């Protein structure tokens, strides 16, 4: 941790409500700074576990009435929190969890926020994800009691002409719903070209001028001849413009749009289903990095420009960097050998610019030496992972257990999970491995129609190609603070993701071995 004096956010002698509240927040966070530069913070795993267990076993206090339509979320946040803390449930509570989840399945298909509540994309995601953690095949295991056929009909019933989906009948359209639908459909082998037609274009249309993504966009349709016989297709075409984003660039929506886009890669790769719009990656990267606050806010992430730091954006924003790697941005496996060599050559030619260090391989060797804090700067992430861990450990933990938005707020189930998931993203390098993808494709047993099977195989192998880079974890405060690695798309462990998918795709997944050399030994 740098011993340089802190620079609070500049106010330019021109205060406004934004700068007032920013200043106030920084003053509070100052009290949570590491006491000494060499301090080793502790993740109080036991306290957080007790917090989660209390909620699970005793139940949630009355103020959680506001979450009555989000019961699947309460359970998912709690169960995935356990997974992050490397704790498994006992068989009794496991079965109770499965039985509870299944009461949320609606007779018409899909899951609702509670028994008898209307089916909803977000509730469905949370319920299915919770089942991925506690469920199993067979009677009373949950998995085989999911009505996939009716679920698919529910998905199609909320699909809109512009490629988006309502989150539930009569409800809003937004990218959270799209992520939830695509993720669930991928886990349960329900993805089809018909289901996702136009969706990639919708996602792209949500990118704002700032580079992040908004909640939704507003479509306009071509003006069509009133007489049906003059129309060229049964559905009106969405126009490229105007198609304004509704709402500013936001961390939560950005994660959902980006994860949705990654989930659609098996479709967008083919020329038939390729979207007409593409993502603007350079502004997206810029915006994401600009969401990390300065050390005056302990290096945590905010969710929108000129707003305050919040622990949950550790996952929504911090976690998005791994997704960018699937699009070729960042990550050592994406680094062009030429770029590294070029940098090396230029820096050798430059005089008196030693502070950049030596380039290429020598630079890598330098990086692998621990700095004075014992931090090994071996990663190639594009944001400051160490600072994010500092935010979470020094400010994100509530002394009584659970994690939070920011001090002096109380902990809650939502923030507990997303802080832990964010910590996981900051500790580990999880990336899509081409070698692993090939292993999985080679083990695929073909069934059914050729084209459809090819697509399923692509979907299956891409989702399961994410691996944790061996030996590249960087854990602030020592090994005791380690949390489990998390799948950057599903926010489950890789093991749980594999487990549920191998069941629904009816495929064997070869065991994960040591991944030899990320770039196949090239660098």
């Amino acid at each position, binding site marked *: 941790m740098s011993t340089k004096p802190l620079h609070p956010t500049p106010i*330019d*002698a*021109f205060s*406004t*409500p934004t700068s007032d509240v920013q200043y106030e927040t920084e003053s509070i966070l100052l009290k949570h700074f590491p006491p000494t530069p060499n301090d080793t913070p502790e993740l109080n795993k036991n306290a957080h576990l007790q917090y989660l267990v209390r*909620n*699970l076993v005793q139940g*949630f*206090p*009355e103020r*959680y*009435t*506001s*979450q*009555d*339509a*989000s019961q699947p979320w*309460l*359970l998912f946040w709690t169960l995935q929190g356990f997974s992050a803390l490397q704790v498994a449930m006992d068989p009794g509570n496991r079965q*109770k969890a499965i039985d*509870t989840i299944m*009461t949320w399945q609606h007779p018409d298909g899909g899951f*609702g*926020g509670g028994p*008898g509540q*209307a089916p909803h994309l977000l509730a469905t995601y949370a319920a299915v994800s919770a089942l991925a953690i506690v469920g199993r095949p067979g009677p009373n295991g949950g998995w085989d009691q999911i009505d996939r056929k009716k679920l698919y009909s529910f998905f199609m019933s909320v699909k809109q002409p512009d490629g988006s989906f309502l989150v*539930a*009948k*009569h*409800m*809003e359209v937004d990218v959270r719903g799209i992520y939830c639908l695509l993720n669930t459909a991928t886990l349960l082998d329900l993805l089809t070209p018909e289901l996702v037609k136009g969706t990639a274009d919708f996602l792209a249309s949500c990118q*704002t*001028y700032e580079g992040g993504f908004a*909640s939704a966009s*507003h479509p306009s349709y071509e003006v069509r001849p009133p007489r049906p016989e003059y129309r060229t297709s049964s559905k009106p075409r969405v126009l490229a413009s*105007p198609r*304004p*984003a*509704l*709402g*500013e*660039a936001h961390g939560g929506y950005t994660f959902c749009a980006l994860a949705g886009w990654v989930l659609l890669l098996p479709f967008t790769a083919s020329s038939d289903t390729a979207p007409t719009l593409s993502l603007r990656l350079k502004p997206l*990267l810029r915006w994401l990095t*600009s969401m*990390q*606050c*300065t*050390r005056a806010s302990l290096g945590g992430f905010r969710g*929108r*420009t000129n707003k305050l730091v919040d622990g949950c954006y550790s996952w929504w924003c911090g976690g998005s960097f791994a997704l960018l790697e699937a699009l070729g941005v*960042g990550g050592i496996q994406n680094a062009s050998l*030429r*770029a590294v060599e*070029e*940098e090396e050559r*230029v820096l050798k030619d430059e005089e008196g610019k030693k502070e950049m260090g030596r380039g290429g391989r020598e630079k890598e060797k330098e990086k692998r030496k621990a700095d004075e804090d014992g931090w090994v700067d071996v990663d190639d*992430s*594009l*944001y*400051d992972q160490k600072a994010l861990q500092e935010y979470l450990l020094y400010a994100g933990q509530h002394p009584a257990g659970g994690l939070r938005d920011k001090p002096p707020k109380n902990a809650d189930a939502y923030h507990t999970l997303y802080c832990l998931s964010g910590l996981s993203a900051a500790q580990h390098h999880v990336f899509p491995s081409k070698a692993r993808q090939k292993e999985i494709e080679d083990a695929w047993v073909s069934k059914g129609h050729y084209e459809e099977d090819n697509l399923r195989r692509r979907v299956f192998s891409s989702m399961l190609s994410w691996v944790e880079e061996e030996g590249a974890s960087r854990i602030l405060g020592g090994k005791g603070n380690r949390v489990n690695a998390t799948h950057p798309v599903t926010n489950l462990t890789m093991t749980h993701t594999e487990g549920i998918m191998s069941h629904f795709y009816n495929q064997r997944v070869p065991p994960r071995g040591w991944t030899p050399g990320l770039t196949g030994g090239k660098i």
Partner: protein
Amino acid sequence: MPPIGEDSASLKFSQKPEWADVVPVLQYENVNPLAPIFYSEEYKDATDYFRGIVKSGEKSDRVLTLTEAIIRQNPAHYSAWYYRYETLLAINTPLDVELKLMDELAVKYLKTYQVWHHRRLLLTITRKPADELEFIARSLKVDAKNYHTWSYRQWLLAYFNDEEDLWTGELDFVDTMLNQDVRNNSAWHHRFFVVWGCGVREGEEDRSRILKRELIYVKQNISLAPNNPSAWNYLRGILEHNSAPYSALKDFVAVYTVPHSTDRTEIVDLELPPPDKGAELPCAQAIEFLADIYEQECTREAALKATELWRSLANEHDTIRKKYWEHRIRDALEATKDDV
């Protein structure tokens, strides 16, 4: 629909004789759930009756009373909202009365999706958007950056795009919001939507004139408070949207990339507003912008200048983004490797 009177307020639905014909349905009948929520007796009662109504499919006036009771206790109960909406339509309730009720709830429950979405559904039918702008402006006084409120305003304008009257005061409205807080990113985003995002308004067909106007506007706001990422993002956004090069702003930006100079001319130049006396310079966003100008020149020489600027950001002016600036350096050097 009859409002909940003081007499009946304390009575649960199970205690009201007019509800005696409805069979309440418990939430968890056969399962002892994990992680239960400890509802109040009133909420449990109301939702038991709601489940009973849903089961029978009843759509009547009293359903409005019931759903209102639930919504007041849990504004996020989307099934209650959806069922309420279907009931309103089924029994032909006058929707402006419903809208008035929503006015009250929206203020209380600003951060809930459903309150805003319900308005959207109603507006789609009533088709009277003019009053909504005033309502939205009042909501923003309470919470100037509420995401649902701003996106609802954008939806309203986009949906009723053809009604020019609706749009006439919009730029002034954004101005007002930015005068209150030049750092309100939601307002800047709205400005982009109004000027560039939703078609061309009457009288604004000369896009180069509009661009010129907006450039002056954003530059003036940068000079007021340069360390304001919202303004810089807007500047970059309008240049990119219009495919205009960053280089045209080099003279403007340069002054913000160095500490204050002691000799300052007092000549007022709208095209080149200088930083106000209180500005904290150099400003990281300005240094970044200048580096981008160099990068856009696509020569090795310019890339090296950009590299120096990025290095100064990495090591001094914006150290939290050190890895990003190093990435930019690598990128620019690789892109110009053949220009040596």
